[in-house]
């Protein structure tokens, strides 16, 4: 082996292939048939179930679990997918611990919720393994809809529109679809190329065409699309990365965590992915955790995740934080980056301690420095390629309760629109609901 965890600099192959493969195995192993039956039996089939209310896509969770318990997993999957066409991915990436499973009455009573996420995966995986697509395209409406972005919001919107008989063209800036499912989440949450498999399965409904390598603003423009289509849905996500706003940000090896994760996800082999010996991740969301954990799993010796506020303010769930620490990531709370400086071939990151006083974040005046070969910024993303006509509020496209923008034949959803909370499941809900409204407007 060429390198080890202690090798200097940013290198690949710190761990042997066996260890790398083991590290990047499924985070949660799929349930066996028997395990699924046992897990499903724990569901109380609550009246007006709290889990269902907690799910952004309002999946009928008690019903799909009962369908598993009675040996009808295809029906179970259809219950899930009729509300959330990306139910397979959501079963893998949803922070269930802050959504359905947090609301589960068994979490309330015993601290052990029904394993809703794993059961959802059991049902959807079974259906997809049989290559069954339980929905069909509606009779042709003659209407054409453009969808900008083949991420969760765009795909959910396109699929729903297809069931309603419309003809959809998706314009995707990258050469692959899936959006953050493909490029933005930790590899161990979506093994075996699941995002692409799910995309192919979703498209099998028909009536959806994807044009890759067509980014809005650069390759296509909104005015042209508006004139070519009866309606447009924008689900282009947030392609810009927020800056640290401190000195040294532009130094070599100060990278975006999003790019790091994307490169890792697209790598032919984990043994080709480079990672520093000493990695400092700055941020407090899921992207920060995904970057930190994967750095550690690639063989980085020291990985620090530094967040400017306290543990309870971190948008990554307690579960995600514990996952990070269990993999050996050190989390430092209440510290904000002041500057990055070069130290020979390495970097030093200087932080100032902070405290919250009446919810105002203040620096205490004390500082410390962390040595780093690689600094990964994960402090949020922003909307780029803004159109002049679209109304933007707080950096996101303004939409009404139907997902409609200030321009009446343009809708938006997912991370680029207000109300999106950076979750796949929310994006799916917004895309789906916008499709329903688009249909109601087109068929007036």
């Amino acid at each position, binding site marked *: 082996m060429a390198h080890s965890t202690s090798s200097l600099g940013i290198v690949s192959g710190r761990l042997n292939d066996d260890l790398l493969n083991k590290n990047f195995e499924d985070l949660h192993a799929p349930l066996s048939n028997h395990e699924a*039956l046992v897990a499903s*039996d724990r569901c*109380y089939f*609550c*009246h*007006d179930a709290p889990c269902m209310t907690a799910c952004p896509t309002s999946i009928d969770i008690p019903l799909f679990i009962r369908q598993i318990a009675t040996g009808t997993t295809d029906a179970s999957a259809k219950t899930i997918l009729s509300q959330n066409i990306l139910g397979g991915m959501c079963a893998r990436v949803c922070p269930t611990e802050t959504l359905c499973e947090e609301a589960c*009455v068994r979490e309330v*009573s015993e601290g052990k919720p029904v394993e809703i996420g794993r059961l959802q995966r059991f049902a959807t995986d079974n259906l997809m393994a049989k290559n069954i697509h339980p929905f069909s395209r509606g009779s042709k409406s003659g209407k054409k809809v453009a969808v900008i972005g083949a991420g969760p919001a765009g795909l959910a919107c396109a699929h729903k529109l297809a069931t309603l008989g419309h003809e959809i063209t998706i314009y995707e800036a990258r050469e692959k679809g899936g959006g953050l499912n493909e490029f933005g989440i930790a590899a161990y949450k979506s093994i075996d190329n699941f995002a692409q498999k799910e995309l192919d399965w979703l498209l099998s409904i028909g009536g959806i065409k994807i044009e890759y390598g067509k980014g809005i603003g650069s390759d296509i423009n909104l005015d042209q699309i508006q004139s070519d289509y009866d309606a447009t849905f924008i689900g282009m996500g947030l392609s810009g990365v927020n800056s640290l706003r401190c000195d040294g940000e532009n130094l070599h090896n100060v990278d975006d965590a999003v790019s790091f994760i994307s490169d890792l996800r697209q790598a032919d082999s984990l043994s080709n992915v480079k990672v520093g010996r000493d990695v400092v991740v700055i941020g407090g969301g899921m992207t920060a955790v995904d970057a930190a954990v994967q750095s550690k799993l690639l063989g980085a010796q020291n990985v620090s995740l530094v967040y400017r506020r306290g543990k309870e303010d971190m948008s990554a769930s307690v579960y995600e934080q514990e996952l990070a620490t269990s993999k050996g990531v050190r989390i430092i709370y209440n510290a904000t980056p002041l500057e990055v400086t070069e130290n020979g071939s390495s970097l030093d990151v200087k932080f100032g301690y902070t405290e919250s006083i009446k919810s105002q974040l203040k620096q205490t005046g004390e500082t410390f420095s962390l040595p780093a070969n690689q600094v990964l910024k994960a402090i949020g993303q922003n909307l780029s390629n803004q159109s002049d006509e679209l109304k933007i509020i707080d950096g996101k496209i303004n939409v009404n309760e139907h997902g409609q923008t200030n321009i009446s034949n343009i809708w938006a959803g997912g991370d680029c629109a207000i109300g999106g909370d950076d979750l796949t499941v929310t994006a799916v809900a917004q895309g789906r609901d916008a499709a329903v409204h688009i249909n109601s407007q087109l068929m007036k």
Partner: protein
Amino acid sequence: MADLTSNFIGIKSPNPFWLASAPPTDKEYNVRRAFEAGWGGVVWKTLGSEGPPIVNVNGPRYGVVHGADRRVLGLNNIELITDRDLFKNLDEIKRVKKDYPDRAIIVSIMVPCEEDAWKTILPLVEETGADGIELNFGCPHGMAERGMGSAVGQVPEYVEMVTGWCKKYYSKPVIVKLTPNISDIRKPAAAAQAGGADAVSLINTISSIISVDLDVMAPNPTIDGKGTHGGYCGPAVKPIAMNMVAEIARNPETANLPISGIGGITSWRDAAEYMVLGCGNVQVCTAAMTYGFKIVQEMISGLSQWMDEKGYESTEEFVRQAVPNVTDWQYLNLNYVSKASINQDDYISCGRCYAACEDTSHQAISMTSDRKFSVIDAECVACNLCVEVCPVENCITMVQQEPGVIDPRTNKVVEEKHGDWTSHPNNPSVFAAE
């Protein structure tokens, strides 16, 4: 420390737990293992007449109703009586009894309904030194088609007749095992008593189709595309069996007839329930077939702990204790009023009580938008459904309404004195009698 030793119709055993006549007691090897594990006695699997041995099917014999985690709730079997040679069985019984003199060995017998058949086999059984016999008048499958098993148990006259022959040709205790596949269990019990039986044991298995294979369109277990009814046993049959036990125990005619309780006994508690309903001891099969012989250790320690806690020194002290409290519906106190009460600290907001009451009962539970549930006393009839469907034990309880208060459902004062159907003004026979 409680004394678990049992003296059932003069047959002594170190505890009241016997293995029922069934596959676990078919041969010496199994019975020795059972005794080593601690079982107080066994009823040896049913012997048939001398001659060519019985044949069994060569396909599956059992089927099961599973609960969660494949817990065995009910077991169905189509196995016949022993398919081993009569004399081999008799030799083994003799040997085992000699080696385990403190354990009870009862020999189950099923031969044709002819006096000669019984007259022939009984001396052979007597010669083994076994402590008694049990007459298999219960098996509902296979042998019943040949005029034995439940075919005899369903005709009280035959029960009395065959019991009489056994008392005539056998000197030790005779237990008559009853079939539940009959409309009034008291009749064969009385017949057994009239024939001179020392005790009855019940229940044998219930005629059943355990499940249907929807691909081959045949009952399970399926033998070459066909299935037949079997005998059902295990935890699922316990409520049915206990009612039959109680019917015999509280029938004045058979109140002194000793009973050995059988049917789904899986823990010490099941055994205790059977015993307080009138059983001198109990017999177990499905639990052993599911978990192995070791389970008797839990039964022994559990019964012992419960007896210590309650201050019972011997099993005789609690046998039949619940019998006086088993009564007919008409004698239940209609002036007793209770209301469901939901403990607001224990509940977990699942809303099952609400769904059950709102959809299927009396609309007596209210639900707020923030998922708080409470009982509407003016609607609650105290049916107990909410208590039973609630996943949290004791979260919902039934609270007795004190005499003197007004029941908001009926607007009537709760009366202190007993009042039942026999004196109720709505009962037509109250007036007819006057």
